[in-house]
């Protein structure tokens, strides 16, 4: 990897920033051209206005690339008390706390740590950062890169395509089943930093993989942007499960494009937990391209004070005999706003499609807001599509029942809420499930409700 005296590019985005990134990574000509074309697309496209309010996004005031070379001196004493307290409550191991709080080594825009057990490597599984994937598996990479999400898909896909750095490249050979989830960590540690990781996962026929990403970041006063792109290719008979637990600090704009293509008899499951950030716009999507393909999207969003979680899922049925389920659970409290936005689309000729979408929202108080914006669009008659949604507050009868059995009010509330989000938590590896339960308990403390 080439070293450069420049630690981060100046604020703002132009060709020189993009070329600097490509140079840092020693990229082939086709990738440089791709980035530059994407930059043009980004500059041309307007900001979307149909979703959350993006007017506060300081696009010209961000650093778009940062490479770690030196330790930054920051003392543990400088870390705000409530962040230290959060670590304590979530049970984060001591060794990780300094790292998470930005004390000690920095990890910006570069994937620093991934470990792949030699057992899997012997089976031909590839799990590296995206840049390494681009260099060492060039043919495979080029065959699938940007085929699921092209740069002109939306303004933030174009941005990511121009300045992407970091992310994972995963390749699973035919028939290989990976039992332990593959995990990755992201960090945003510096003020005014952008995070643009790009992940590509390819599952060959008959294989299966579960990939988990859990992000956390300490709080800063100036806004930051996280605009990732994740592409999944699930070839015939394969299964990909992609789990995200997002808990970005509440000054971050989290605008992510995630999409999968599922081929014959393949299954893709998106498990999406949105707890943090100031604004999240994220709609994991699955294109069911061939018969027998299945999609499962489970999404949970918790919006507290000053937050807007605009999340959901999209499924596009292009082939007959495909099925999908979307389950969305959202909780709004303390003035937060949580919105479900989704699309269920069936093209003509896609007969015998079955789909169920269920969105449930819990409102903890009347300062908060909950919205649902689903679209069911079918151009084919021989289908069975259903969508239902509900909004309510915690049922007083449920709370009364639990309290009459001796639980305190807060414990009763936490229990009911954990039951509410159970469809999601059930799908997580245990350590995440435990963290989520604690996170919910923490968020619910002191809420009215």
């Amino acid at each position, binding site marked *: 990897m080439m070293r450069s005296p420049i630690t981060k590019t100046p604020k703002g985005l132009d060709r020189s920033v993009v070329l600097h990134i490509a140079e840092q990574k020693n990229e082939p000509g086709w990738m440089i051209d791709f980035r530059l074309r994407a930059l043009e697309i980004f500059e041309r496209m307007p900001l979307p206005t149909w979703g959350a309010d993006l007017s506060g996004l300081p696009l010209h005031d961000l650093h778009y690339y940062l490479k770690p070379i030196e330790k930054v001196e920051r003392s543990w004493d400088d870390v705000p008390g409530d962040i230290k307290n959060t670590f304590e409550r979530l049970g984060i191991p001591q060794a990780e706390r300094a790292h998470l709080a930005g004390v000690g080594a920095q990890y910006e825009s570069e994937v620093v740590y991934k470990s792949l057990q030699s057992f899997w490597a012997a089976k031909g599984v590839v799990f590296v950062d995206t840049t390494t994937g681009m260099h060492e598996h060039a043919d495979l990479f080029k065959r699938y890169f940007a085929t699921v999400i092209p740069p002109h898909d939306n303004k933030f896909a174009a941005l990511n395509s121009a300045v992407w750095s970091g992310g994972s490249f995963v390749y699973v050979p035919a028939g290989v089943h990976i039992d332990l989830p593959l995990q990755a960590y992201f960090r945003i540690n510096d003020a005014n930093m952008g995070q643009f990781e790009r992940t590509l996962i390819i599952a060959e026929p008959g294989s299966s993989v579960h990939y988990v990403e859990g992000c956390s970041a300490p709080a800063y006063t100036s806004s930051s942007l996280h605009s990732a792109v994740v592409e999944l290719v699930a070839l015939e008979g394969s299964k990909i499960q992609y789990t995200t637990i997002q808990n970005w600090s509440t000054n971050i704009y989290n605008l992510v494009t995630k999409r999968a293509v599922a081929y014959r008899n393949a299954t893709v499951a998106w498990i999406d937990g949105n707890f943090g950030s100031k604004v999240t716009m994220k709609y994991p999507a699955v294109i069911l391209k061939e018969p027998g393909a299945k999609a499962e999207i489970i999404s949970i969003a918790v919006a507290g004070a000053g937050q807007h979680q605009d999340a959901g899922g999209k499924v596009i049925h292009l082939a007959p005999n495909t099925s999908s389920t979307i389950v969305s659970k959202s909780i709004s409290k303390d003035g937060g706003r949580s919105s479900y936005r989704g699309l269920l689309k069936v093209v003509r000729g896609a007969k015998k499609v079955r789909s169920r979408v269920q969105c449930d929202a819990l409102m903890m108080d009347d300062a908060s*807001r909950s919205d649902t914006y689903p679209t069911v669009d*079918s151009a084919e008659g021989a289908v069975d599509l259903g969508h239902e949604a509900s909004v309510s507050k915690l049922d007083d009868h449920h709370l009364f029942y639990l309290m009459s059995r001796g639980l305190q009010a807060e414990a009763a509330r936490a229990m009911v809420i954990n039951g509410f989000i159970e469809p999601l938590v059930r799908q997580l590896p245990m350590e995440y499930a435990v963290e989520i339960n604690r996170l919910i308990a923490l968020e619910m403390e002191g809420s009215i409700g």
Partner: protein
Amino acid sequence: MANVHVVVPAGAHQTLTHYQPEGDSGVAYRIEVGEGARCDFFVLLWGGQVTTFSVELVLRGEGSSVFLKGLYSLKDKQKVDVVVVQRHEAVDTRSEVVMKGILFDEAKAVFKGTIAVDRSARGTHAELYNKNLVLSERAAAMSMPRLEVQADAVHCKHGSAVGNLADEQLFYLNLRGLSDILAKNMLIESFAGEVLAVVPEAGIMNQWRKFFLL
């Protein structure tokens, strides 16, 4: 495009009907319901090549309620665009909207429904259902039921569905000796029945049958 503004005064019970058996049309209703008042609204749309229908139901008074039952039935290349808004502005209000559609041939329907609950509208109970029975491969339905809720002590639900006649139900009727046509008619009529049976005008069922059954 016709605009109709209806105000249901406090304590009153108003029944409205909108039948559109033929001809293209565009109509927009705004119905305000006062304290303790109730409005029942029956809507039947069929026959026009392009029909647009929109209604804004404003639950302005405390304890007011609105019940809307509607059915659009389309053949050939007919199109319908339906917009329903349930706006809850007061405490303890109730709205229930059931809008069903039956699409034959190459008909197309677009349904946009919104339940909007103000911060002050505690105790709201709102339901919205859009169900589309699509009877041919070339017909298409698009359904966008939306919820925008700013009060917490509420019960709001919506649902939408697109599908055709259930194979098991047809099979059951075939087993009892009914031909395919009779069986289909029976199922289509029962689907429409939820709305047609409660419409106050006599003879509507017969008129509708003449148009739509196979």
